[in-house]
């Protein structure tokens, strides 16, 4: 292939031939008439293929420095006397993008084009010819002419879609473009007047910014081209076209026309002075944020894509205005975000045409065709800037550049806009994954292939861009490769994929463990060994379990990368990968859709804060090493706080916790332990990195950590209080996780040696007992088919092994000696008293006592009390669920009896950062400055005593007689139904009366209110799109006037 290309490049085909061949064929097609549709269609494809080849040839040649950029002089005269075209690397890239979408678009629209005869094909071909010219041309008026050609061609193609909607949309489009063209023309003629030239290079050279008249002319030109790019809110006309046109055309409009117009804007920006550039960036940002805000409540798929399209182009406009074009990374950023938009938007519009579903809720039909669903999700993630797509790198680099310039307000605006986009796109993704699937129309190969190619293109370009980003080559793609393999073999039965996944996780662990320091080692064990343990129950599941393993490995791969990360980029990459994977895992639960969405929103919000923080970290520093966290130059406290809050969205700290109960509670039985026992620790890992980097004991962030301490304490309280009023077993555990993570946050925030020992002990314990509890309860929930504890009961007789596991789990959780939970409590007291955080400590302690309430409720309602009639035939959980539980119990036992095995190395590891008041060891006895604790002895004493007493009681009651279920004293009655004697529902009613006000859903209400506010704002503003084409024209003119007035007041 390379050989062929290089032969081709020996003999470059002049780009003028794009025009000549296209027009020649177009005119010839007119000759053919409507009869020979097939022939003319073949000619159309041939012409588009030719264009594609020419542009790709130039791209190849220019990118490899085989040829020089070429100026093409028409009519044989040098500019400015004649029109000239330029084929440079930029042009080659843009033209290639345009021509590829042209070719594939023509294939996609094949049937429509054939049906409408050669006329429509002529229009199609001319459209792409004109797009090529406006990219290549260096003459202002020439660009105008071909922009008009393009506009008219689009207006012609709009009506390929039948129905009055398309016609009225087309008319609105014509109204708008007509006015824009007029404005453009006024600008052109005056710039000719004031600079004496129509040649772009000459105009730029004459620096129109210095003459007022010329400045106003260039203002008009720029505003016209910006209006072509549909700035918010003067873009109602464009939205209608996106919605009503043939999806193939919408794809072209969004990707090809949008790209071409953006490039025109790029060419024109040379005329604008710095002040104008400022406004361009402002316009872009307003468009990005505004359009995405308005998109939030949109339910119609193509219109929604229209909003997103407008928004993305707004972002690109903003980038154009924000970064100096001489900036070495400008092109990379622009290219990354542009190509994501290009591939994704075209792909999505194409898919919309394949499945013919207007409402986004109907997109669940995609599930009938997993390949399409995969592509759909890839496109959506690409739009949102997730790795490994090009926009991820673009967005990353953009934030880094803007940070270096200190433009944090701009970053925030962009992140807010992105966040709005996440809201509606991820909601849509959720619908497609979860809702009832309708019937999928028959798919023609010609519509299928372009989508697939664009999907592949997205990944390929993503990789390409990553290699050009600074430090992008440090990214380890191994985990993604594993995911890809699992995607390919998704048709295999689950147990095969499960084995593969376990092997892969083990392999990651094998690769990672050597040479890690203690803390990372602990997290490697939690993430990866935990991963293996929680994957084991998957053997229980029959069938294929489509999509599960790629998601799981995406998450575990992300976690592995997180540990491996040595620079900010790697870390953020891993963080995002993990987020996507976990999202797809969480959403698998039956009722998980809304919860997965709120998980995603909080995660993305957190990720953006982290990104912003990273931006601040990198600003003023060179390189991206994680070590920079300890030398933040710009707003260090703010940066630290942002990152901390970002990580706290994952640990579900107070205020950011409302996603967790639903997400963990509704997830599948073996997913809950993954996300609860393992995934939450990713946030902890992040916090640990931050806190270690902050300087340990001698940090300058004591205020921040004080606040974090309180947040941790209150989180513990609220989480545990929430848990006691749950009737749903898994939600109870989920709330418990919130509480436990509150303890952990609190402990780390203490920032002393003892505090950190506490934190890490809690972390390890929580990993073990929460995995046990969720595995056991999850297995039971799966067996019984209900989450409600009051519908269970008496299962101890059916599932003794699970009962023992849960019992050990809750003893550990409660911190009752002799199990390892007590170690955490003991360390905690020492840490709190030494630090002097008495009140916070008391709050956490109170939370701990509350834990008893829910723990009792859990074990009592599920295992004790009366067995229900419909559970009389339930069997013990399968070995696949019990095995990991018992492995973890062994872990707990070891940690309980010999905590020094783990705590000593941890102590040594953190002694660097926290040298004072260390824990000292005398054999198995731990000594702090306050007290002492000998876990081994305690184990022996209690164990010995327990055995003696048990033996005694057994001896005493050896003749005890086993009785029937209902044999008991019950107010002189004998109950017959288990429900009547199993008090489980709302057993803490009294407590609720007394302290229930503490769990009033204030925070949920706050977030609901915020969401409603955003949505209703969006809905309100959306009304300006009244559907009246004339109003859109008024918007357009007002937009010009308003921007002009703002601009005038500034100069």
């Amino acid at each position: 292939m390379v050989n062929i290309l290089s032969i081709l490049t020996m003999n470059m085909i002049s780009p003028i031939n794009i025009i000549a061949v296209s027009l020649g064929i177009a005119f010839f097609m007119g000759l053919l008439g409507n009869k020979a549709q097939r022939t003319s269609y073949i000619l159309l494809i041939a012409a588009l293929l030719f264009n594609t080849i020419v542009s790709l040839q130039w791209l190849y040649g220019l990118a490899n420095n085989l040829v020089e950029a070429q100026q093409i002089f028409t009519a044989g005269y040098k500019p400015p006397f004649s029109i000239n075209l330029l084929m440079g690397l930029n042009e080659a890239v843009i033209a290639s993008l345009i021509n590829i979408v042209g070719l594939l678009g023509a294939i996609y629209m094949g049937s429509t084009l054939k049906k409408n005869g050669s006329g429509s094909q002529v229009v199609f071909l001319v459209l792409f010819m004109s797009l090529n010219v406006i990219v290549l041309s260096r003459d202002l008026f020439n660009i105008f002419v071909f922009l008009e050609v393009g506009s008219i061609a689009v207006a012609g193609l709009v009506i390929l879609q039948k129905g009055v909607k398309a016609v009225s949309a087309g008319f609105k489009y014509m109204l708008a473009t007509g006015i824009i063209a007029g404005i453009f023309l006024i600008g052109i003629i005056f710039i000719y007047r004031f600079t004496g030239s129509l040649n772009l290079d000459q105009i730029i050279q004459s620096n129109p910014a210095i003459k007022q008249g010329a400045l106003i002319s260039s203002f008009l030109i720029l505003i016209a081209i910006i209006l072509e790019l549909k700035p918010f809110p003067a873009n109602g006309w464009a939205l209608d076209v996106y919605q009503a046109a043939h999806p193939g055309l919408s794809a072209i409009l969004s990707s090809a026309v949008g790209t071409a117009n953006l490039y025109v804007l790029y060419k024109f920006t040379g005329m604008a002075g710095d002040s104008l550039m400022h406004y361009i960036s402002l316009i872009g940002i307003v468009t990005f944020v505004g359009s995405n805000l308005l998109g939030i409540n949109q339910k119609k798929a193509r219109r929604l894509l229209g909003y997103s399209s407008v928004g993305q182009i707004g972002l690109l406009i903003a980038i154009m205005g924000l970064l100096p074009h001489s900036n070495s990374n400008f092109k990379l950023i622009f290219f990354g975000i542009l190509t994501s938009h290009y591939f994704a938007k075209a792909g999505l519009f194409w898919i919309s045409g394949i499945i013919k579903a207007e409402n986004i809720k109907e997109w669940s039909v995609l599930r009938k065709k997993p390949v399409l669903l995969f592509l759909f999700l890839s496109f959506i993630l690409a739009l949102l800037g997730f790795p490994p797509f090009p926009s991820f790198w673009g967005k990353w680099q953009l934030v880094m550049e803007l940070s270096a310039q200190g433009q944090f307000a701009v970053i925030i605006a962009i992140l807010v806009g992105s966040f709005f986009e996440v809201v509606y796109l991820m909601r849509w993704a959720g619908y497609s994954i979860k809702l009832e699937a309708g019937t999928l129309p028959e798919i023609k190969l010609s519509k299928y292939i372009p989508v697939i190619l664009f999907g592949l293109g997205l990944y390929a370009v993503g990789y390409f861009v990553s290699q050009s980003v600074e430090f992008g080559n440090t990214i380890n793609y191994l985990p993604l490769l594993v995911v890809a393999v699992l995607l390919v073999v998704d048709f295999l039965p689950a147990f095969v994929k499960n084995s593969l996944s376990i092997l892969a996780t083990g392999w990651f662990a094998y690769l990672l463990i050597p040479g890690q320091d203690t803390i990372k080692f602990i997290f490697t064990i939690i993430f990866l060994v935990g991963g293996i343990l929680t994957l084991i129950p998957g053997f229980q599941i029959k069938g294929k379990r489509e999509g599960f393993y790629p998601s799981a490995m995406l998450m575990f791969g992300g976690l592995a990368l997180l540990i491996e990360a040595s620079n900010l980029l790697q870390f953020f990459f891993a963080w995002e990968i993990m987020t996507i994977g976990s999202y797809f895992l969480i959403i698998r639960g039956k009722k998980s859709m809304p919860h997965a969405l709120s998980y995603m929103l909080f995660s993305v919000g957190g990720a953006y804060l982290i990104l912003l923080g990273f931006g601040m970290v990198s600003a003023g520093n060179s390189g991206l090493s994680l070590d920079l966290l300890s030398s933040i130059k710009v707003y260090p406290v703010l940066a630290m706080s942002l990152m901390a809050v970002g990580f706290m969205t994952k640990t579900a700290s107070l205020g950011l916790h409302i996603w967790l109960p639903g997400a963990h509670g509704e997830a599948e039985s073996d997913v809950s332990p993954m996300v609860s026992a393992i995934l939450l620790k990713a946030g902890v890992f992040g916090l640990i990195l931050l806190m270690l980097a902050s300087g340990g004991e001698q940090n300058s962030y004591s205020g921040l950590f004080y606040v974090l301490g309180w947040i941790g304490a209150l989180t513990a309280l609220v989480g545990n209080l929430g848990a006691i009023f749950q009737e749903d077993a898994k939600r109870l555990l989920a709330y418990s996780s919130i509480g436990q993570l509150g303890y952990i946050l609190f402990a780390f925030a203490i920032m002393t040696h003892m505090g950190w020992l506490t934190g890490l002990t809690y972390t390890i314990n929580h990993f073990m007992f929460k995995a046990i509890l969720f595995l056991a309860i999850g297995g039971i929930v799966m067996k019984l088919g209900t989450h409600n504890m009051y519908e269970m009961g008496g299962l101890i007789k059916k599932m003794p092994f699970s009962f023992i596991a849960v019992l050990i789990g809750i003893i550990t959780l409660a911190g009752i000696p002799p199990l390892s939970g007590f170690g955490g409590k003991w360390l905690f007291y020492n840490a709190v008293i030494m630090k002097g955080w008495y009140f916070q400590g008391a709050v956490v302690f109170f939370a701990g006592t509350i834990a008893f309430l829910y723990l009792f409720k859990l074990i009592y309602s599920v295992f004790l009390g009366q067995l229900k009639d419909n559970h009389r035939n339930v069997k013990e959980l399968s070995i696949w669920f019990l095995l990991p539980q018992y492995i973890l119990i062994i872990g707990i036992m070891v940690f309980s009896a010999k905590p020094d095995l783990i705590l000593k190395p941890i102590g040594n590891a953190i002694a660097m950062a926290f040298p004072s008041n260390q824990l000292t060891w005398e054999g198995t006895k731990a000594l702090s400055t306050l007290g002492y604790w000998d876990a081994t002895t305690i184990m022996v004493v209690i164990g010995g005593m327990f055995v003696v007493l048990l033996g005694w009681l057994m001896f005493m009651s050896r003749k005890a007689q086993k009785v029937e279920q209902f044999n008991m004293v019950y107010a002189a009655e004998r109950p017959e139904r288990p429900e009547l004697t199993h008090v489980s529902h709302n057993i803490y009613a009294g407590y609720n009366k007394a302290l229930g006000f503490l769990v009033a859903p204030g925070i949920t209400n706050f977030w609901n209110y915020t969401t409603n506010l955003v949505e209703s704002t969006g809905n309100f503003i959306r009304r300006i799109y009244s559907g009246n084409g004339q109003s859109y024209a008024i918007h357009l003119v007002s937009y010009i006037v308003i921007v002009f007035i703002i601009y005038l007041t500034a100069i």
Partner: protein
Amino acid sequence: METIALITAFALILIGLFGILSNKNILKIIIGFSLFDTGLHVLIVTVGYIKGGTAPILDKVVGTSNAADKIVDPIPQALVLTAIVIGLGVTALMLAYALKLYQAKKSLNITDFKELKW
């Protein structure tokens, strides 16, 4: 001279725009466009005007040697031709649209075509 032309041109443009923005009838809107276009064309020609210049066609009076001093700027004249043709094309297409819209709803009132909104 060019002042008057310029004022006329701008006035025409504004009148045309007013027609476009205020008339409900689609045909009248298209007429507004024609006015708007005409204003633009006048503007372009005016910009090319040189005080006391003549048409840029060389003949016995205006030869190659003195052309540069005598003629008006030929470029805007060339541009205006293009602009006219484009305007014509747009108008034709708009009329076709108007026809189609009328066929669909038996109405030429632009406010009747609000199926797509928000």
